[in-house]
């Protein structure tokens, strides 16, 4: 089975000599549809590894443990994930696990981690449902899908107390549908009138029919979207069709830097983001957001995307739990994770301990970004929460 794995663990000779090494296993989508996001996430994890090893390792119960990573390419495919996680646990004897990228792959890996009672920190996976299946060893870093758009709606309500009619239009995928369903309930609670609630098929490129419906329903604001490709197209066609919306908030797509390629069509579009380099969280452990951003820039020559930050955060949370536990004993580490309530550069981290939703992220909040013109240039600004903002929300946009 040599063909399957690519060993990238960089183990210091010292660590070998002392024998104090913690091995963390994961799969990375080096190929396939999650390639870009997953490799980004890996960069964050590797940066954390380097950071912690440069400090001499993780201090646990008076000893220092170096961190080794072991990962394989899962090809973005579900069928490889279970095979490789089984291998990581039973053959490579890794100590802890980090999830693959995406909720779909994480769900498959979770069955294996649960089978062996291995702790798995899940990053790049925003699904709620994985954490409602009764798993006891999976911990979520991201804000779950159910709270993706709640901040957006809070912001909209704060900007316009009178606005009633909103449209929720989402990609018919597991993630976007979960987000939209939760957003609908929250919108109704907030006193919005959801005049259109509809999904569009995954490969949609022609948003004409949907846009006609948005117009027909007389929606004043739009929240929804799905992933990058559909979101960018949706924004472009909304602009071309001159749909009179006061706010457009889309998932994922506007949070990417490439979104600027849309030009004027990008202007004013809002997106929830897990994390942005400009956020100002007051961390109680680990690097500050600015320190992390600098470290990342030094290492990779560009600004970190939230996926990279999520990767680093996953390592940091595990590190924190090990330090709190003072031992590598899985049961104690699990107890430390259950009890965790910290703020790191990525934001507030606290897990649900309710058996019905064990491991679900409760603390972390989304930030809202908006594309604005700054000195003639399109730029992302943080507009919500107010404590973290870098600019005021532009409202209405049209």
């Amino acid at each position, binding site marked *: 089975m040599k063909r399957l794995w690519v060993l990238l663990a960089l183990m210091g000779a010292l660590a070998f000599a002392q024998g104090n090494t913690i091995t963390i296993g994961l799969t990375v989508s080096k190929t396939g549809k999650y*390639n870009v996001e997953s490799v980004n996430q890996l960069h964050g994890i590797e940066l954390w590894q380097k950071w912690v090893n440069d400090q001499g390792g993780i201090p646990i119960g008076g000893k220092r443990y170096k961190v080794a990573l072991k990962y394989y390419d899962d090809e973005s495919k579900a069928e490889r994930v279970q095979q490789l996680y089984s291998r990581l646990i039973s053959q490579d004897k890794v100590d802890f696990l980090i999830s693959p990228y995406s909720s779909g792959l994480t769900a498959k890996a979770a069955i294996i981690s649960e089978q062996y009672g291995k702790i798995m920190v899940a990053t790049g996976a925003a699904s709620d449902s994985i954490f409602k299946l009764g798993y006891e060893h999976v911990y979520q870093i991201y804000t779950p899908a159910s709270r993706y758009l709640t901040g957006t709606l809070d912001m909209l309500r704060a900007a316009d107390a009178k606005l009633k009619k909103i449209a929720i239009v989402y990609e018919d995928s597991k993630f976007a549908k979960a987000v939209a369903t939760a957003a609908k309930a929250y919108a109704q609670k907030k006193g919005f009138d959801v005049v259109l609630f509809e999904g*569009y098929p995954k*490969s949609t490129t022609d948003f004409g*029919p949907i846009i006609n419906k948005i*117009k027909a329903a007389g929606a004043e604001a739009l929240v929804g979207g799905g992933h990058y490709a559909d979101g960018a197209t949706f924004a472009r066609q909304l602009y*071309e*069709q001159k749909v009179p919306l006061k706010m457009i908030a889309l998932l994922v797509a506007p949070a990417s830097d490439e979104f600027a390629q849309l030009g004027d069509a990008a202007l004013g579009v809002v997106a929830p983001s897990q994390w942005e380099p400009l956020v100002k969280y007051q961390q109680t452990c680990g690097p500050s957001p600015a320190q992390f951003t600098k470290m990342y820039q030094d290492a990779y020559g560009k600004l970190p995307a939230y996926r990279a930050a999520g990767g680093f955060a996953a390592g940091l949370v595990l590190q924190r739990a090990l330090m709190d536990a003072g031992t590598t004993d899985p049961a104690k580490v699990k107890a430390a994770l259950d009890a965790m309530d910290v703020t790191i550069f990525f934001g507030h981290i606290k897990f649900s301990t309710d058996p019905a939703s064990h491991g679900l992220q409760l603390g972390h909040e989304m930030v809202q970004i908006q594309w604005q013109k700054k000195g003639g240039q399109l730029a992302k600004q943080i507009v919500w929460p107010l404590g973290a903002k870098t600019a005021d929300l532009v409202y209405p946009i049209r």
Partner: protein
Amino acid sequence: MPEILASVLDGLLIGLVYGLAAIGLTLIFGVMDVVNLAHGAVIALGMFAVYLLFGAGLHPYLGLFVVALIGLAFGVVVYLVAVRPIINAPPLMTLLSTFSVSMIIIGVGTAVWSTSPYNVNFPVTTLRILGYTVTSARLVAALAAVLVTGFLYYFLYRTTLGKAVRAVANNREAAELMGIPSQQILAISFGIGTALAMLSGALIATLFPFTILSGGIYELKSFVASVLGGLGNPTGALFGGVILGLIEGSVAPFIKISWTNVIEFVIFVLILLFFPTGLFGGRR
């Protein structure tokens, strides 16, 4: 009500482009009984062709002419390599060989362009007609589809070569007996079918973003449209495309968009079962 009209108009315009794609598929089937499973991949190639030409400074609408020529040449090559040796074998063989061509195109395309979306960013104006907003690109695409179809009809019914294509489609052996080099005609027909697919891809690329995988959905729509119109019947395929577009446009206001595909495929299977020669009569 105006929204419904807008939706129907949208459907009509895009339906013409579906129709053009379907003609490419149905022409090849009509002439040589080959269901070209590389159709979708070729549509995607058309998208990238116009994208590359645009990148080289050619206006997308001028690029169409070049795309058509590339399509013709490419189709002839595909025919000679993958279809000709097994043209008389059972249908499974040509289905599989054209599918393998599709795998090769998509494989190379993925290696070169990955599967991320591309756009042909050229200035598009917005027109208001009867209080409804339409982009110039949509109008031009529909018009181009009609023009290309007209041109194809002129070719098939007014030129000797075009008539030879129809003769070979009617009776390959008799055509050969009359001195018509049937293999050349088959190669040319495959080339034309491919050129039409690439043209429709190029037109779609002026409307929507695309990836190397985008051809798949239009391939399926081409199947539906050409079966609606009767496999092997180019006029039928154009009408099939329009019907498909109109169905999409007219049901969209009343049901969830995501049900449109279900309706289309159910119609597809039902038509195959109960009107196997399509609504306009095809060749069996």
